[in-house]
């Protein structure tokens, strides 16, 4: 019998599976579970986008595209960044990736050497630290606080910067907290980074889902675009998760390096998805607006309802998550979620799945119909009153 464990690379072997996995298995083992636990939109991909994909197949567009993506798509992406953020990228500064996920992967792997420290804003999406570790880097958590509306503050950043700091991962609008960084907040971060050699990986996958104001990117502040790798994609804005399509935009010398990893690991992003993405980015502004309006309505309802039943939450202004505190129940995040699941059949995600600083919180997704959300909140209320 082979001892496979001995054969696995040490870095991979030591990598922890996502903390959500255990919960996923528990929830799946039960029947009649109402979930507020997913991280993907409930809307269908706009019909014209699906038609564009079908049409590309009918026309036989089934070959590889250029490694970095179709010229038409890269141009459309550069135009979109120019229109939304007022920052100019040449289409050659764009790589079309397999989801924002691959963008994050190639950005980290192309920059991080063994021993480099990477500052990771927490709580956050689960993939950054494992990829940093896989590159031999050292993830350094920047623990944001509820009392700061889960924003990254200049003080916190300054405190953690060392001579070995290579990169700052800035994920706003944030999954799981729903926090956003306003221009003023970003200006303070930029001021700290000025004069250093620290690069920023700005994961803005939820940028289209910003409420009560326009999304601001760190690339809009001073000369920050020069030191930023911008990651975005089609999954959240256009409800295209399964199409696996995202992009990075960055200074040309960085793109040149990232492209090497991309071409050896991926070759090119799926052609059918690229055709769909051209339609999405050029003809779906109205769909995006409609989805955002509906998310916003649910968000307002949910924040009010949760505060009403005694789960304090600050008002999230981005993504589609609410991140209420459950500290007053006296339960840990995991206890709360396990009992809610086992006793009331509602699945939400414990906050500590997104970093230790998420302890004492739960993530509730409102990527569900309002009717569904209302039923789930009723059950959560029942649970809280019976703890």
């Amino acid at each position, binding site marked *: 019998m082979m001892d496979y464990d001995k054969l696995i690379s040490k870095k991979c072997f030591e990598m922890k599976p*996502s903390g959500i996995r255990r919960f996923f298995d528990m929830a799946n083992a039960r029947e009649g579970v109402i979930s507020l636990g997913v991280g993907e939109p409930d809307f269908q991909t706009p019909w014209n986008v699906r038609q564009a994909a079908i049409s590309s197949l009918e026309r036989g567009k089934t070959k590889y595209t250029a490694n970095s993506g179709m010229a038409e798509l890269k141009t459309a992406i550069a135009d979109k960044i120019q229109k939304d953020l007022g920052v100019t990228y040449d289409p050659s500064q764009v790589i079309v990736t397999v989801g924002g996920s691959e963008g994050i992967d190639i950005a980290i792997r192309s920059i991080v050497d063994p021993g480099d420290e990477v500052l990771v804003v927490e709580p956050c999406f689960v993939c950054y630290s494992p990829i940093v570790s896989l590159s031999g880097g050292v993830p350094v958590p920047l623990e944001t606080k509820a009392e700061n509306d889960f924003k990254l503050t200049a003080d916190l950043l300054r405190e953690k910067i060392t001579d070995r700091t290579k990169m700052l991962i800035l994920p706003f609008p944030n999954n799981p907290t729903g926090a956003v960084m306003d221009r003023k907040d970003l200006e303070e971060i930029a001021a700290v980074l000025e004069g250093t050699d620290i690069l920023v990986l700005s994961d803005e996958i939820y940028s289209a889902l910003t409420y009560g104001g326009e999304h601001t990117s760190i690339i809009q502040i001073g000369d920050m675009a020069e030191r930023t790798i911008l990651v975005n994609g089609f999954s959240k804005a256009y409800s295209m998760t399964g199409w696996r399509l995202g992009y990075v935009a960055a200074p040309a010398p960085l793109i040149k390096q990232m492209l090497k990893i991309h071409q050896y690991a991926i070759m090119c992003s799926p052609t059918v998805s690229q055709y769909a993405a051209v339609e999405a980015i050029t003809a779906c502004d109205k769909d995006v607006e409609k989805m955002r309006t509906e998310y916003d*309505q649910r968000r*307002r*309802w949910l924040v009010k309802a949760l505060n009403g039943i005694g789960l304090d939450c600050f008002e999230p202004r981005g993504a589609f998550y609410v991140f209420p505190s459950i500290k007053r129940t006296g339960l840990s995040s995991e206890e709360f979620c396990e009992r809610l699941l086992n006793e009331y059949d509602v699945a939400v995600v414990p906050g500590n799945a*997104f970093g230790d600083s998420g302890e004492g919180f739960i993530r509730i997704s409102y990527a569900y119909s309002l*009717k569904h959300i209302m039923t789930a909140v009723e059950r959560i209320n029942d649970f809280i009153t019976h703890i």
Partner: protein
Amino acid sequence: MDQLLTLLKENARLSVSELAAMAAMSEEDVKSKIAAYEKDGTIRGYQALINEELADKNAVTAFIEVKVTPKAERGFDELANTIMGFDGVESVYLMSGSFDLAVTLSGTDYKEIALFVARRLSTLDGVVSTSTHFLLKKYKDRGVYMDTEIDERGLIAP
């Protein structure tokens, strides 16, 4: 359209406090705005959206295209008024195109509808011809899919 109307159009059972939260208005404003809409007739009523296939297996619905000769001075209104007065007539629209009035009619069986067209509708003064189409299956109504959509997403995902 006003956000309040959009919300009510989608779900008329939302409470005033829910509407207030969702539309970012005060409860007082929601109440007075709804009252104003009801008063000026912008809101004509509140109905449940029912899948008749499940509610009443025998129910029959027909769409009838009616060609008419408009009367001097009163145009199409007089005839439209007469038609919409009949029981079972759910909607009457004046249309552009190859016919004039589109009438939706519901009945308990085919015969009832056939008799209505033959005896009541066709015989009206001014009706030139009718063409009756029976509804076979309703896929989508007022923006809502009639078959329940299955959520294919996992229960938990990062």
